[in-house]
């Protein structure tokens, strides 16, 4: 009998990651899109690291960091009674770090593409930076925001290396669909692998379809 909890877990992880990422990435992207300085360049390079690093490398370092045997992991366990290795929360934090550039980059480039006068106009009308971001800048980069959300979601769904390193393969807890596929193939259970893979395929296709049809619609409306 095939179990669907890897699919639910994957969706839970993907939704959770996307939500946290969006909240974190909007202020970060806004800050990065402003005037350049050395500090920003360094932060930008760090944000982009997951694009070039093998997921296993990120997973490895996070595993070391979260491990109760080491400083940070020990501190978490002692003070917050939180153990992040082989847990869903650990998986969530790792996913957020791993997909960060997929959320930050589209939003950042969307914000940079807006004419600077838009921001200045809002300031001259007495609006704070925060009000300007929420009411003027973000509503005018809807396609970029949707791209960022869809890419982060899809990227999290497809995660494998990081999940395996941090979460392992615990059914119902950290066994996501991509891990389950690998697991089923290992045990020659091709039917189950096929079902999981098929669901991921359809899911990915639908998300991208939504993205492109929305972007086509907004282009016709003549948004930025």
């Amino acid at each position: 009998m095939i179990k669907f909890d890897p699919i639910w877990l994957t969706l839970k992880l993907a939704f959770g990651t996307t939500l946290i990422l969006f909240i974190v990435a909007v202020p970060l992207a806004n800050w990065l899109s402003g005037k350049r300085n050395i500090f920003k360049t360094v932060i930008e390079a760090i944000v982009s690291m997951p694009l070039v690093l093998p997921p296993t490398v990120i997973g490895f370092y996070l595993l070391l960091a979260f491990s109760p045997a080491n400083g940070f992991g020990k501190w978490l366990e002692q003070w917050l009674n939180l153990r992040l290795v082989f847990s869903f929360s650990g998986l969530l934090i790792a996913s957020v770090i791993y997909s960060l550039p997929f959320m930050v980059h589209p939003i950042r480039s969307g914000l940079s593409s807006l004419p600077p006068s838009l921001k200045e106009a809002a300031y001259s009308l007495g609006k704070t930076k925060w009000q300007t971001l929420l009411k003027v800048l973000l509503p005018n980069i809807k396609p970029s925001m949707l791209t960022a959300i869809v890419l982060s979601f899809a990227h999290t769904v497809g995660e494998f290396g990081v999940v395996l390193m941090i979460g392992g393969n615990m059914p119902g807890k950290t066994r996501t669909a991509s891990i389950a596929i690998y697991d089923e193939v290992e045990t020659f259970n091709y039917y189950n692998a096929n079902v999981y893979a098929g669901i991921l395929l359809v899911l990915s296709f639908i998300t991208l379809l939504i993205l492109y049809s929305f972007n086509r619609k907004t282009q016709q409306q003549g948004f930025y």
Partner: protein
Amino acid sequence: MIEFSLHKTLHTAEGEMQLNVSAKIESGKFVSLYGASGSGKTSLLRMLAGFMKPENGYIKVNDAVWFDRAKKINTEPQHRKIGFVFQDYALFPNMNVRENISFALKKNESKEIVDELLELSGLSNLANRKIQALSGGQQQRVALARAIVKKPSVLLLDEPLSAVDSGMRAQLQGTLAEMHKRFGLTTILVSHNSDEIVKLSDTVFHLENGKFQQQAAPATFFLNAFTPGTLTGTIVAIEDNGNAVVLIDDRMIRIDPSIKRLKINDKVEIICDPGTVSILDHRDC
């Protein structure tokens, strides 16, 4: 009263330039900044608005200090009580006309002024239109109305009429003059266009290479810009009172000729005397 003395090193296409300007502008006046591209007009406007930080100097508006390097005061644009009309209008594409204009108002503030501005700018029947569905001239009106809605201490206009055709330009100049008067604004306009400056402003500041070369009444300033004795033109019209309208290059002036037998198409030479010569608007002819 607006009073400023500002210094900043600007990086222009021709290299570094020192902007060094100071002036006093009385409240309620309409002032134009005139000068070649790259002379520092827009930079000055941006410093007054708080979008650009001067290296030295001060800006005082009425009793408030907006900038003072010595006292380390630099008020944010949000708190300067300015209205700014950008060259590209900078309207918010996610809002319709009414929303753009009322954006500056707080939730509990009366929206009466919005309707008044819509009416004055001839935008009442376009209030619910999206910005993208407006012509250049209409967008310009929205930008102007939006800049005025908070009744600013200073209205700053950065070549707002440069992108519209001449017919529309004349109409918009009318609206601008009316708004300036009606709301008792102090207005600073950056413009390349001598007609516009003469028509709208009380004083023109001629900015060249980062310095004010001259401050004068516009008519005097532009008449003096002609070199006396060297003007050659063609008569394009004779008015009922005997005055002749002469085309000199692309500009027209009206003269009261001592010779009364002049005909249209006659070539004339004119000695320029600010007392008797006045500049006409192009479209009048």
